[in-house]
């Protein structure tokens, strides 16, 4: 029983992080109509940027280090678009896919060159945390859940209450119509990158808090995010949120049945199944 409860809690935790990744990924899909396979590297660099500011010589405390880390990740996201994807707006999906994959390799190896391949942590001591219903919960984990809730609320408010957020949803719905309605689509796309990069950075930091930092952390989790957006309907932000949480639960409850060694296989399994059932998602809706 305790094991079950612990698995559910772990599932929620993983689900929160996947949801943040998936929401960022689907935002970009919405406005630009392609899956940014370099999103994982925004996640990873976001986490490392925080590390950069928290380690010596700077040694800033987390809440302060978060600000420059967030800014740098946003800058990285915007540069990605400006230098890699923007010149290819008229290109076909395959070109974009290959570009994103190339960018992903480049950024991952770049991080490895900088920080090495070894595991790193932010250097917090692992605290015992509390025991509730016999499951152990650490402060970090509470922080992960709360941060996710705040992010979801901010995303909701931006998309449904702010002018730029509504414009972004309009661009996702129909780019041409948005243009002829007079919406500044370039600004809107930039805003989507800012939101997507911010979610990636925060998600990456939370992931690193829960586990550790390594250059490959983005890539493996991007697969989970990708499975989540397939599950939730590509381009649908609330579907992505839900999809992320479902994947988190599926993985952590799946280990009750199969060995933990196969944990990652569950997300892959869901993804393969979805692609077999609804193959058009990979190519996007043509209308």
């Amino acid at each position, binding site marked *: 029983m305790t094991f079950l409860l612990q698995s559910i809690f772990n599932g929620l935790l993983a689900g929160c992080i996947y949801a943040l990744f998936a929401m960022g990924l689907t935002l970009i899909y919405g406005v630009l109509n392609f899956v940014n396979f370099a999103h994982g590297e925004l996640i990873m660099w976001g986490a490392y940027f925080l590390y950069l500011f928290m380690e010596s010589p700077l040694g800033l405390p987390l809440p302060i280090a978060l600000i420059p880390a967030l800014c740098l990740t946003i800058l990285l996201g915007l540069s990605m678009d400006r230098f890699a994807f923007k010149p290819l707006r008229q290109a076909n999906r395959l070109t974009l896919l290959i570009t994103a994959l190339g960018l992903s390799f480049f950024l991952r190896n770049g991080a490895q060159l900088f920080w090495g391949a070894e595991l790193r942590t932010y250097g917090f001591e692992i605290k015992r945390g509390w025991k509730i219903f016999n499951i152990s919960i650490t402060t970090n984990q509470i922080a992960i859940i709360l941060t996710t809730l705040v992010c979801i609320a901010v995303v909701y408010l931006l998309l449904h209450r702010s*002018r730029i957020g*509504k*414009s972004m*949803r*309009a661009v*996702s*719905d*129909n780019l*041409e*119509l*948005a*243009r*002829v*309605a*007079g*919406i*500044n*689509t370039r600004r809107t796309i930039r805003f989507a990158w800012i939101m997507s990069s911010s979610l990636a950075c925060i998600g990456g930091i939370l992931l690193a808090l829960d586990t550790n930092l390594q250059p490959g952390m983005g890539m493996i989790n991007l697969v989970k995010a990708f499975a989540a957006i397939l599950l939730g309907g590509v381009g649908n932000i609330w579907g992505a949120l839900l999809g992320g949480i479902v994947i988190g639960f599926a993985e952590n409850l799946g280990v009750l049945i199969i060995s933990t060694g196969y944990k990652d296989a569950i997300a892959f399994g869901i993804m393969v199944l979805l692609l077999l059932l609804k193959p058009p998602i990979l190519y996007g809706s043509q*209308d």
Partner: protein
Amino acid sequence: MVTLLEVKDVYSGYGKIEVLHGVSIHIAPREIVCIIGPNGSGKSTLLKTIVGLIKPKKGSIRFFGSEISGKDPEEKVRMGISYIPQGRNIFPTLTVMENLEMGGTPLGDPSRIEMAIREIFERYPILNKRKKMKAGSLSGGEKQVLALARASMIKPKLILLDEPSLGLAPKVIDEMYRQINSINQEGATFLIVEQNARKALRLAHRAYVLDLGLNRLEDTGEGLLNNEEVKHLYLGR
């Protein structure tokens, strides 16, 4: 005669495929001009070229005498050109209210947008009733009303309308043409592309027949309706 819009010898198309091979039309203020022609004659391409979604390869497009062929759609809306594309002409996941807000983007100031929406609601009470609903869940006729309302948020001088009757029931089409007529009475100019041309021609002051990307005929709406060749080739018996 004063011209609102003058399209002169325009060549345009998608990538290497040229669809318009030198099309010319002109529209006077307050006119309703209709373009008819078979599938693939370049009617929609002409509208897209005028609004700037496609840049012409050659030729000139003048709006109130100034050249606009190189401008982006975002700029042209600000000049008072509204475009309602064929079929997908609303934002389905946005609410009716949000659709109108988006249509009001060029107005800038939120209070001006709010005022324009109030006027729209007075004119189309059905939209007021549905304002919180997702636009995608409206009926076909309501969607078309919303599309027209979205495009009139900026009080445009020229409205480009692509196949407004597509997929609508005859009664709904009649209602829509009544709306077009009343907006026209208030001063807006219309350029309408239609494949089911009878109703549009009855309303239009003037009309053009486009065929294979070339001008074929030009006459009053009435004139084309009674033209034997047009009847035979484009209207069907």
